[in-house]
């Protein structure tokens, strides 16, 4: 039976009737009793890019959930994108493990703080976390901002704070981060490109 991937999905997605199974070339009698659908048939395909190295392999993510208002989408499978000119549907061992990254038990779920001297994390709300951090930033910038250097030149920099940006974050994230960090006067600013 010669059909491409998309046709295959259509056939399986069309429903688990004997007619579709017959189209697949199976003898209908014993198989009609089987009411199991192809695992990916009801998933939503979303196109993404592998977050690891800089080949930028195309990946297709398959999630359950029909995008209704309260339906929480859950990714159940990730594979290479066959249309992508560079990886042509393949992935390396790192990319092949992406599903386990998305669902890793090390995924952070809640804002936490480790108080000075403590041996443990304490869960806090976003509001508390951001309020405290902003307060630290304001106090430190007000105290240590250098408007003029020792020679009286205008320098407008804040040296007692620094920022390391993530080189797996998107351009849009990076662009906004850069814009914000510079407006604060921070110059101790890098990402993985430095190392």
């Amino acid at each position, binding site marked *: 039976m010669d059909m491409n991937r998309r046709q295959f999905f259509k056939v399986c997605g069309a429903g688990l009737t004997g007619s579709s199974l017959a189209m697949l070339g199976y003898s209908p009698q014993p198989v009609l009793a089987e009411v199991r659908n192809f695992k990916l048939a009801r998933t939503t395909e979303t196109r993404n890019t592998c977050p690891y190295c800089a080949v930028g392999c195309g990946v297709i993510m398959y999630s359950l959930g029909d995008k209704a208002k309260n339906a929480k989408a859950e990714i159940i499978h990730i594979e290479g994108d066959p249309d992508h*000119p560079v990886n042509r549907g393949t992935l390396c061992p790192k990319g092949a493990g992406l599903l386990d*990254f998305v669902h890793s038990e090390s995924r*952070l779920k809640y804002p936490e703080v480790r108080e000075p001297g403590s041996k443990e994390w304490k869960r806090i709300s976003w509001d508390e976390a951001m309020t405290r951090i902003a307060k630290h930033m304001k106090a430190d910038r007000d105290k240590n901002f250098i408007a003029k250097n020792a020679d009286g030149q205008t320098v407008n920099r804040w040296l007692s704070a620094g920022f390391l940006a993530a080189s797996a974050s998107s351009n849009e*994230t990076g662009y906004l981060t850069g814009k914000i960090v510079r407006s604060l006067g921070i110059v101790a600013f890098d990402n993985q490109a430095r*190392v």
Partner: protein
Amino acid sequence: MTNHWVDIKNANVVLIMGGNAAEAHPCGFKWVTEAKAHNKAKLIVVDPRFTRSAAMADYYAPIRVGTDIAFLAGIINYLLTHDKIQHEYVKAYTNASFLINDKYKFEDGIFSGYDEKARRYDPSSWGYEIGKDGYAVVDETLKHPRCVFNIMKEHYKRYTPEVVSNICGTPKETFVKVCETIATTSVPDRTTTIMYALGWTQHSQGTQMIRTAAMLQLLLGNIGMAGGGMNALRGHSNIQGLTDLGLMSNLLPGYMTIPFDREQKREDYLKVRTPKPLRPNQMDFPQNFPKWHTSLMKAWYGNAATAKSDFAYDYMPKLDRLYDVLQTFELMYQGKMNGYFCQGFNPLASFPHKAKIGKAFAKLKYLVIIDPLATETSEFWRNVPDYNEVKSEEVQTEVFRLPSTCFAEEEGSLTNSGRWLQWHYKGAEPPGEARGDVEIVADLFLRVRDLYRKEGGAFPDPILNLTWPYLIPQAPSPEELAKEMNGKALEDLADPKDKTKVLFKAGEQLPGFGVLRDDGSTACGCWIYSGCWTQAGNQMARRDNSDPYGVGQTLNWAWAWPVNRRVLYNRASSDPSGKPWDPKRKLVSWNGKAWGGSDVPDMRPDAAPEEHVGPFIMTPEGVARLFAPFGMADGPLPEHYEPFETPVDINPLHPKNPKATANPAARVFKGDMEVFGKSKEFPYAATTYRLTEHFHFWSKHVDFNAVTQPQQFIEIGEELAKEKGIASGQMVKVSSNRGFIKAVAVVTKRIKSLDCNGKKVHTVGIPIHWGFKGVTKNGYIANTLTPFVGDANIQTPEYKAFLVNIEKA
């Protein structure tokens, strides 16, 4: 990359050196396989270890860690000695014929203009000879002793095969075979592609390693050609993007630079960055710098950035020095920093000299982690016996750990190594209360801005006036941000040749950086990304993978910078008359009226060949620099220097001049020079690297990858193992002057000892991937061992060449 991944299939020779594409970029390596299968290409791998790339090679050459400049310089000498260069290309497209002024000198490893105390060069004696017409003087006969071609020949004549073999440990015949193979691509219709990565960047002479290879490619006529180029295989999915956007200490978007303290006036700042052409008729594209900078300031500061306010020039901080990560953590270690943010980065594991990094963090008042995963950095304060010994009660740092989304849970673009910006979509919500990075930084910024609005404080202007036009202030959308990077017209833009004609209406997205202006009428967040989201929509999301010319040029898939150009310097793929050097792999050529072909021309479209506009449009000379009169901190020509921790103790090229043992212009912090390891105590060379199955300290949180490589190991050759009585599978202790790690020893045939300058040099291989968080077995952080010194130009740490000792644990 000057070229891109698929283009590699067009190569006749592939050189993988300073990188290991089969293991670190496996899906990109497929294009090497294609080149071998369909183009009869030969693969050469030069590496201290016989890697999986080497296993696929036609030819493998071993090399001592840190000696790549000597090897490459040796190839240059071979090409010049045997006259295997692309003569027409070298004459027309490089500065081979330019004269250098008569003050230039090179003596026993040191160039003229050296200040030993400051460890810095004054490059003025390296400059071109300038004629009365203000242009650089050239000698097209290449006979003048001070022309670049002859200076270069003289400089590299010392790098004979014997000398190379002595420094690098590579057997002479092996080295010569590599030279011969590469030399076959000096003809116009054969190309070598060079694929390199952190094996070249992570050295104190890393920039010069890369530059030596670039010189090689220029002599062979391989830049701008299909299957040619200098191809950096970058390490992260968007490290190219973040570099392009200027998220580094001294950068602004599009590789513009932050002003220095001495540049108090905007006109001074602009003047230095807007060079005048050094030869007649050259495009000298950086002449447009003021347009890019003004447009950036308009994008960020809107109406606060006008001609009257000098386009808010003083809002930008200025630099008195570089605040790279080594400098920053040196300051942090000295207690001079109070707060730090680590977004998607794990410096306790990634930065050199882990003990110093841990102590530095403990001096902060507050540390903020933004990450999808629980990292070692976030728990630098946690005592983990053996792996992270610390007294938690003595660490007073307040640590906030904020959960963020991962790639699958956000929308936006990523830029791959080939400069392609590819859009991706969100497939699911993050777990728990995790938020997107954009929301997190936006929230922080708005709160800080609010505090400044309410309370006032230190110089609030740049914060209060930062443009924030987003429909949902706490959640700027990826579309809004991408459009801002692209740039738009702020008023109706009239045609300069006919003021009645409106080219772009106010508010319209612009088609590219070519239409940016310096008068405040255009805004553009990142000039090299201009064209990514035009009036026609999101160019990065395009999915047409057709390759009409069959050379791997898929111009309608995603969008590449600049202006969707896929191969940089592609005008150089044609000869000075505009005819392709190789008609079988055409990129761009002159059709009598315009430049065109399978790529967006890297040349003014109507520049007739008779005008002699050089292909290297980003230099004021219009040609590529074999000799670099400015721009390099450690010399106009690459020279072999030893790593700061060297197993042979001296520089074999300059055995009597200790100033020239290691890079004379690399920055060394006070107190660090004395504590570099010496071969007496630490006799073995060492290097760090990745495995195929893992990605840094990230994939040890991933079950699938953890099971393939669950436990920390190091690799040593059979000879060293026998010497130390170490059997495969035994626990060993590897130590440097900064600390130790313990790991399982893997004894292998793939690392052989090398004979260098009368010494037998063994190499210990140290994969990096373990730590004290994740689902693999806990391991020591490999960077406990690495030295706190960086490249002279860019300060990338010397992770790939240092000294260790090894013994049974």
